[in-house]
């Protein structure tokens, strides 16, 4: 287990978000996607740190005291206790923990320097290098970390550095005089501050790397690459009946999901945890062109994405924060996702309305009437093209989510010879029970539909069908759609962006706050994660 792995645990939750763009005057609607890091995660991370000691592992680090020309490299383990999340204001939080014992075993050599640009440490002693064993111990002490999320700034509280330094002992057994030298108050404080600097910069650089500068962008093709509905058809095929995509290939190939922080009011701290809000958006080819400066239709998609990603890191493009921040309750979960229902509906509208819900249902009447009306199978079929006039909407009623597809128009026609002759139009209202879930493997927010709770109502717009015929269609449509939802019960909504990397996650609780869904998640910090 390495230090960066620990930091991953600390920070992985932040990695949730990415960004959207506000390219030029193309202003997508504001979709505040949020993540809340709960105090419980800090407690869990401390437990994880303690497991390092229990497993006889350590965190390696090195530093160079240039004033003393001394190089040290240590492997550290420590026992921590009593982690506390202290909210200082709406923009500052303080994380406090006690060090019950800290012990580092390593080596020392005289002669080192730090590159002023790269900060890389080089041992300058002449070979053969003769390292001497060194140990560092702190009996106990309090450690606090001040976090100002608006600046993404993390600082170790130095006010107690003198007290901690007074409890620190550095030993170089082979060199008692050096031991005496390094245990002077000023050197001990210098060593401690070096360790603190190192911790801060490591966490900060890891955060930057892990959060990709708080920028994220991913194409729909990438989002949906494993979605069988996106890639193939027919969707349902059984004797004489086929449900398939109306168009042979994805039409919205440039559709892209992106998010970035709001320029202001993006980060908050409360006693419930650290809240971060991002503007999530679906970008089309025009947005991508404005953002990347490249023509998506003519350029390599990876180059377009890379240019767009870099552009998204420009804060000038970020949207000013103006959204209704949900009121959150305390939770013993590790973190929470705040998902506006407008975003899930927007995902349906962007990912699925035109592509995945424009379907064609063919009932091969020739096959079904073979031997009844005609001896041979005749080339005649009923074709129902299905084109939703509005995107499906997720709603929350009576303590459950459901997906409503209203004004869903089915054009019914007969395919005869080389043409489809339209007969009538049927309007349908389709409702199905839905739930949000996190897919840690695919790193996706998904909507899971329950085909056992599926309702369908049809209405003949043209008035050409009898009630019995409408009932017959209703039966047919319900049976086909039930098959469809059984085969395709999970739909990608948008990337979670954070990378759980083999960590098991569970949804503990789902609540609705205003226009947002709050998913409380717990995470199992087990295993050796990269």
């Amino acid at each position, binding site marked *: 287990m390495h230090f960066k792995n620990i930091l991953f645990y600390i920070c992985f939750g932040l990695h949730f978000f990415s960004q959207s763009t506000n390219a030029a005057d193309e202003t997508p609607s504001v979709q505040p996607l949020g993540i809340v890091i709960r105090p419980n995660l800090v407690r869990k991370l401390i437990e994880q740190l303690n497991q390092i000691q229990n497993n006889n592992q350590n965190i390696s680090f090195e530093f160079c005291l240039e004033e003393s020309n001394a190089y040290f490299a240590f492997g550290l383990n420590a026992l921590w206790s009593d982690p506390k999340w202290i909210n200082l204001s709406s923009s500052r939080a303080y994380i406090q923990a006690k060090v019950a014992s800290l012990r580092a075993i390593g080596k020392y050599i005289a002669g080192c320097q730090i590159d002023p640009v790269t900060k890389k440490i080089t041992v300058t002693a002449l070979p053969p290098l003769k390292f001497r064993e060194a140990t560092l111990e702190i009996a106990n002490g309090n450690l606090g970390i001040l976090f100002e999320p608006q600046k993404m700034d993390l600082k170790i509280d130095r006010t107690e550095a003198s007290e901690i330094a007074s409890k620190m002992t550095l030993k170089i057994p082979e060199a008692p005089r050096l031991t005496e030298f390094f245990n002077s108050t000023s050197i001990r404080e210098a060593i401690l501050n070096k360790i603190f600097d190192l911790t801060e910069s490591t966490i900060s650089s890891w955060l930057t790397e892990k959060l990709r500068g708080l920028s994220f962008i991913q194409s729909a093709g990438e989002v949906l690459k494993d979605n069988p509905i996106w890639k193939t058809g027919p969707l349902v095929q059984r004797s004489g*009946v086929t449900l398939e995509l109306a168009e042979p290939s994805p039409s919205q190939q440039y559709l892209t999901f992106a998010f970035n922080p709001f320029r202001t009011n993006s980060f908050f701290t409360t006693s419930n945890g650290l809240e971060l809000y991002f503007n999530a958006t679906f970008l089309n080819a025009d947005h991508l062109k404005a953002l990347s400066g490249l023509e998506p239709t003519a350029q390599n998609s990876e180059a377009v994405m890379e240019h767009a990603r870099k552009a998204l890191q420009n804060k000038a493009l970020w949207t000013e924060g103006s959204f209704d921040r949900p009121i959150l309750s305390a939770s013993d979960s590790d973190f929470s996702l705040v998902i506006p229902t407008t975003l899930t509906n927007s995902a349906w509208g962007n990912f699925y309305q035109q592509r995945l819900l424009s379907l064609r249902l063919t009932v091969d009447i020739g096959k*079904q*009437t073979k031997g009844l009306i005609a001896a041979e199978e005749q080339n005649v079929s009923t074709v129902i093209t299905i084109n939703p006039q509005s995107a499906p909407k997720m709603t929350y009623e009576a303590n459950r989510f459901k997906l409503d597809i209203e004004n869903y128009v089915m054009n019914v026609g*007969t395919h*005869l010879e*080389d043409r489809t*002759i339209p007969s009538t139009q049927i309007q349908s209202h389709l409702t199905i029970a839905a739930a949000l879930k996190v897919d840690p493997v695919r790193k996706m927010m998904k909507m899971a539909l329950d085909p056992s709770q599926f309702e369908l109502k049809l209405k003949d717009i043209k008035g050409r*069908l009898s009630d019995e015929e409408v009932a017959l269609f209703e039966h047919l449509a319900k*049976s086909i759609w039930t098959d469809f939802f059984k085969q395709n019960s999970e739909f990608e909504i948008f990337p979670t962006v954070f990378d759980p990397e083999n960590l098991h996650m569970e949804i503990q609780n789902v609540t609705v706050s205003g226009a947002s869904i709050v998913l409380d998640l717990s995470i199992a910090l087990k295993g050796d994660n990269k």
Partner: protein
Amino acid sequence: MKSMPFYILIAIICSGFISCTSSSSSVSEYNLPLKPYKLGEYLQVENANSLITVNRSDEQTGLVRIELSTETLSVLDPSAKEARDIHMSSGKITYRVDQEIRLWNNKPISLMGGVSRLRTFNWMKTFGRITYENLKLESRSLTFREDGKVISDSEIPGSGRAELAFASHPDCLVFQNSEGLFWGYFGNESEGIKESWPIEKGKAGAYVTAREVNGTLSVAYFDDDAGILKLAKKSNLAETFATDVVDGTSGQTYRGMDIAIFNDHGEPGLIYLDGWALKTRLARFFNGKWKSIELPLRGAVGFYNQIIAENDETITIGSHNFRTQIDDYHQIFENLATFKLDIRGRI
């Protein structure tokens, strides 16, 4: 059967089992040439005794010529059982087999691949011109020699609907794009559309047939949004098209597919399919008004209508029956039908 949408089936069955309407027009010499074969799709007229179509039966399959007087069939391209979009001009035939366009000029020649639809064909002495849609659904024009050698292949401003000669232009095209239905003419064998005029703005423009009747250009077309048949006419290049609704009521009918234009004593007359009734209809122009009737033919009839011969007394019509009602208990499917229609009186 229990999950079958009966409304559609009823439309098909009812249109045949019961002869739906009566008509005062006199149909005679009704014949089903080569009845055992599945014939008549994409029907083309070579002359009054010879038709070109596709035979989808298991025997004598492919692109075929039908001699009406002897009721004999000769196979022109046996590998073209799936021939579609068949067009004929000056004895030459173009047709599509899957994504390939072929030219038949005494033998089948492959013209090109990667085609989704072949729209029109016109042969002009030294070269032929087709219009087509490629797999990206782009509308294009291709010119070629009689040995199939391609001269040019260029984009055109809309999807070809009908090609004909009119006024001083031997190579005119009715085409449709997002703005509407247009008429224009091509330049030489390497040129695209040189000049065009609107026929009607909007979406109407399916199943277009164009013909010069008594010096007047007549363009008949189906407005499939409204379900009505329209006819646009003009006498010279400078004139604006005058458009009439020939048959149908918007939203209440679906009349006007597979149109054939005949010379009805100097006026255009129309034979076409009623898509909901699956019946052949006749429309004629008398005293400044259009009148139409359903022809008394039993079955699901009236596809791919063509005028085989015409004079002042009768017209001979060729078409394809999806289903032919022989009697109350006997029906057959996929037949070529020919019959005469007396046009001396009024309807």
